[in-house]
């Protein structure tokens, strides 16, 4: 029972981490909360669903298609809704409101056109279980957790050792200076959104397989914001750690205390972190500068 709860928690935590990574990446570069991230995850899940049911593709192709689709949607989202504000150097409040608008727009557009029906992915993995030390563990849960670990590690390598990755880190520390050194900011930000969207696509497919696909499924990104805050906004290892911690703690609360109080607990945790440790476990100082 304990081990089973732990693995379920880790797999949910892995999905939270996938969402938190994309959100955190955008936050670290543009310094605003991208509330549209949940909508991109939802659209990624719908893209995956369309590929899986209409074209009956296999899991690998569905995942790739969803990553590409969600990545393109995220880049378009930036181009249409944020780039003007960014160039005008508008306060981050405006970017945030614009992001909120995108989220409401996309969610309800899906609701109005595709409908509020719940869709299920075809069964890719069946309901196989693995017996480990007397407790049964779902293979899907293990897979989701491992995939999240591997892909976030790959992103970490990309950010820390490639030329583009170095440019992204330079942009995080100082945008103006970075562009003076000859980095094309528009291209850089497009890459950041492409990466964030790609991770949103992966998260969308996993969420869709584990639960269902529906217009408001992006709301679960609230949990990703919490994970990102716990880990420290803008930090990739932090997003991973925060996601896993939140997933495990939540699963334990819902199976040992009360499933109703799970969300109340998560949000209390968020407020406690914001108040006591606003930079999270691994974040850098984010005091608003004069």
């Amino acid at each position, binding site marked *: 029972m304990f081990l089973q709860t732990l693995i379920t928690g880790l797999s949910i935590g892995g999905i939270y981490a996938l969402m938190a990574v994309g959100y955190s990446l955008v936050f670290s570069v543009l310094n*605003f*909360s991208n509330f549209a991230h949940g909508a991109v995850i939802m659209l990624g899940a719908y893209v995956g669903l369309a590929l899986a049911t209409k074209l009956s593709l296999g899991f690998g192709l569905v995942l790739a298609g969803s990553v590409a689709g969600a990545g393109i949607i995220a880049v378009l989202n930036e181009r*249409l*809704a944020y780039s*003007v*504000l960014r160039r005008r150097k*508008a*306060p*981050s*409040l*405006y*970017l*945030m*409101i*614009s992001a*909120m*608008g*995108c*989220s*409401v*727009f*996309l*969610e*309800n*557009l899906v*609701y*109005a056109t595709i409908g509020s029906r719940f869709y299920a992915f075809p069964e890719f993995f069946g309901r196989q279980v693995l017996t480990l030390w007397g407790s049964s563990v779902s293979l899907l849960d293990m897979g989701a957790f491992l995939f999240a670990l591997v892909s976030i590690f790959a992103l970490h390598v990309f950010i820390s050792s490639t030329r583009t990755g170095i440019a992204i880190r330079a942009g995080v520390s100082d945008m103006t200076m970075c562009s003076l050194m000859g980095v094309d900011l528009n291209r850089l930000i497009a890459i950041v959104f492409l990466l964030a969207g790609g991770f949103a696509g992966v998260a969308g497919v996993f969420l869709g397989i584990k639960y269902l696909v529906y217009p408001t499924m992006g*709301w679960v990104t*609230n949990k990703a*914001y*919490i994970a990102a*805050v716990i880990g420290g906004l803008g930090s990739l290892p932090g997003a991973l750690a925060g996601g896993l911690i939140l997933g495990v703690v939540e699963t334990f609360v819902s199976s040992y205390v009360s499933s*109703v*109080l799970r*969300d*109340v607990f*998560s*949000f*209390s945790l*968020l*407020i406690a972190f*914001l*108040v006591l440790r*606003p930079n999270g476990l691994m974040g850098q100082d*984010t005091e*608003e500068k*004069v």
Partner: protein
Amino acid sequence: MIMDYILSVATLAGINMIAVLGLSVFTGFTGLFSLGHAAFIAVGAYTSAVLTYYYYVPFALALVAGSAMAGAVSLVIGIPTLRAKLRSDYFAIAILGFGEALRVLLENLTITNGARGLPGIDSFTTPFTVLFCLAVSVVLVSNFLRSRWGAACIAIREDPIAAEMAGVRLFRTRLLSLMVSAVFCGLSGGLMAHYLSFIQPVMFTLTQSTQLLAAVIAGGMGSISGPLIASFAFIALPEALRVAQMWRLVAYGLLLVLIMVYRPQGLMGYREITSLFGKRRDDGRRER
């Protein structure tokens, strides 16, 4: 018949306008972004409804109690988060979380009848009550904004650091602004509960908070009349055009983006409707 219908739309718009007025104090004049003000409407609605429903408290008293309760609840979230001087987006996430947590609580308490909601609340609210409350609210809010405290709020919106250096106490002023906005949201909730005579936790979601915010932003952050006009238009136009709820939300979302991109000062900007007639009182503050 048709008059009844118009009257009911106008009444609902008026109830909504009181909540928008409250949020405009906080978002429009103090510059803090909230995604959780529906929670204060819920507190006002449930408190006043429970009082009249179970305890037969007079309606006026229940309204006051609902507003006061909303104000008190705002302290629960306001004191820890505002004291920590959170960045504006952290604060928005915290208050969003608070709103969601509060809704989960409402769905699981026995006195609120859980997720099924409270049916059969006496419909004490008349169009006249709403008009009266709206008028009183407008007078109170504009007086508040002209007071020392209001000036401090506006200073914080323009530049928190400069305001603090000029001696404005950030925590107290922001908390007061949150409390004032919550009180008006609570009043709006109380009126709503006794107009619709049925309330349910799902009526107070993020969607509701977004609609309030859309009205404040579309109307102009820094104006009282702008958000009121916008909120009236938001309720009346879709009703007149018979648009389905979901397309209404599609339009709200698009509107938020378009306003931020093309006209961040909103419909009225920093001006009031009165400045369009007679002498102009455009104080020419720059766009931020």
